[in-house]
């Protein structure tokens, strides 16, 4: 159904920092055929720790693609009618150029990799579209950090997408968002294995720090009700408290597992760079302080979706974007869906989301 692909961008990529990145490789996957008019492409942007394997097994974990529920023949993002593209963002670690990539001098970039922004990631995606000969997308779609990219594409490349679907996302990272990311970064950098970012090829890297970062982040992806439903205060494999610091509660055991499993598939430096990109994200600031101005030149139809249990990017963030779009009279839909899973709802089984996605993409 798909073949892993990658290409090298023909030109160096200019970055918001003022630097530029040469020899940029973009790893991506496509599903479904591009039609003759080349106007049925849907670009799906992945979240922080996501990848291009949207509807195909993850090469390391063997787990199904992260949006297999939504992407496929006859599914809401219908690969029988649409050409679906999903690319790994720059700065990540699944084949696109990032801190683990070997630089021109033969050593991995590590912390020499330039700090990138969400807009830089989008520039790379647009450069990929140029290489693929896709002038205008049927839609750009994303959840969480993917939603930031979708909004950034609409703002910075206003004629490149006819529809913009942004789910469980925000137009700027709040102080609380930045605080949680900083906690994760500090956990990584406090791990002796991090070694200033130079751990590639070493026997041990900052796995413990990365696991802690993931554990902290994971809590922000769930809702209190979801955690209580799933674990409550139940003990793990024991009848009584042991009066020690083992993973006594099921929720502890679950978090430790999530943290550890993450270190098998993700690079700690990539986590630093991508969280930094998200923290810098502020669409209004890019447009001189007005979010409405950011969207003025767009000719796309927009759809925003939030979830009532998402406290990481709560409904008020989506409403803020909707009001900005209204202020410049853009066609916009918005719905807050009810789901018990917190921020992670966009990845999980929420049938109402399927209906909205299918209806909006047409």
């Amino acid at each position, binding site marked *: 159904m798909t073949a892993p692909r990658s290409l090298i961008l023909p030109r160096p990529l200019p970055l918001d920092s003022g630097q530029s990145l040469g020899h940029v490789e973009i790893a991506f996957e496509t599903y479904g055929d591009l039609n003759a008019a080349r106007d049925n492409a849907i670009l799906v942007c992945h979240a922080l720790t996501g990848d291009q394997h949207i509807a195909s097994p993850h090469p390391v974990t063997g787990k199904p693609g992260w949006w297999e529920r939504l992407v496929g023949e006859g599914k809401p993002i219908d690969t029988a009618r649409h050409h679906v593209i999903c690319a790994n963002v720059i700065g990540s670690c699944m084949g696109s150029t990032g801190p683990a990539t070997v630089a021109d001098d033969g050593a991995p970039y590590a912390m020499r990799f330039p700090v990138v922004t969400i807009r830089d990631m989008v520039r790379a995606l647009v450069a990929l579209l140029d290489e693929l000969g896709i002038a205008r997308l049927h839609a750009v779609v994303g959840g969480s950090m993917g939603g930031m990219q979708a909004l950034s594409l609409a703002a910075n490349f206003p004629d490149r997408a006819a529809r913009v679907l942004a789910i469980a996302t925000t137009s700027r990272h709040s102080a609380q968002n930045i605080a949680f990311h900083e906690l994760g970064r500090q956990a990584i950098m406090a791990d002796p294995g991090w070694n200033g970012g130079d751990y590639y090829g070493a026997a041990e890297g900052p796995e413990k720090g990365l696991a802690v970062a993931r554990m902290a982040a994971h809590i922000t992806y769930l809702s209190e009700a979801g955690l209580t439903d799933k674990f409550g205060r139940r003990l793990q494999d024991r009848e009584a408290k042991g009066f020690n610091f083992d993973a006594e509660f099921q929720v502890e055991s679950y978090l430790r597992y999530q943290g550890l499993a993450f270190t098998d598939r993700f690079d700690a430096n990539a986590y630093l760079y991508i969280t930094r990109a998200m923290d810098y994200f502020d669409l209004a600031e890019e447009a001189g302080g007005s979010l409405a101005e950011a969207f003025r030149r767009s000719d796309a139809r927009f*759809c925003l979706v939030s979830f009532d249990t998402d406290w990481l990017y709560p409904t008020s963030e989506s409403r803020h974007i909707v009001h900005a779009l209204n202020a410049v009279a853009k*066609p916009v839909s*918005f*719905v807050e869906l009810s789901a018990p899973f917190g921020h992670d709802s966009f990845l999980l089984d929420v049938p109402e989301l399927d*209906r909205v996605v299918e209806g*909006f993409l*047409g």
Partner: protein
Amino acid sequence: MTALRPDLATILRRIEPGARVLDIGCGDGALMAALTAKDVDARGIEIDGGCVASCVAQGLSVVQGDADRDLAFYPDGAFDYAVLSQTLQTAARPDRMMQELLRVGRRAFVSFPNFAYWRMRWALLSRGRMPVTRHLPVSWYETDNIHHVTVRDFELLAEALGIAIERRWFFTRDREMPAGGANWRAEYALFEVSGGLPNP
């Protein structure tokens, strides 16, 4: 497709293709779907998430929100028409809602159940209880309708706000009826209005 309610069908007939319309409290999107089919650029606001999801699933542009609060976020004169069907009586301040309608829209269509309809009067007079009818179907304690209004009340409100009534239609048993004695004979009414004083 089921037939549109007569007040909505009247609104549909009056709005020309190419117009920009904001349907406030658009419900399941029946009017918007009909307007869109007529090449009208229709947008909606609806408070019920399920209704919004089904509107979006039909390809309509609908924002989930509370008209009392969210209308303020729309720019002046953004629409040719604002539509408020059977919703005025649920507004926190119907007078301010009317001003908002004519701020975001050049003209507005407003329909509402007429509380002076003779069956209502009769129910109140004979039984001494708040009437429950086809157009006001729930008891006083659970209704969303917090500001009951009559045809005469609406006309006086328009006058007080300097709003011009362009046209009016009256309905009983879902059929249009002549205007004579509308205040006691009409089950519900539809007004097309324009103008208005600047907001205080």
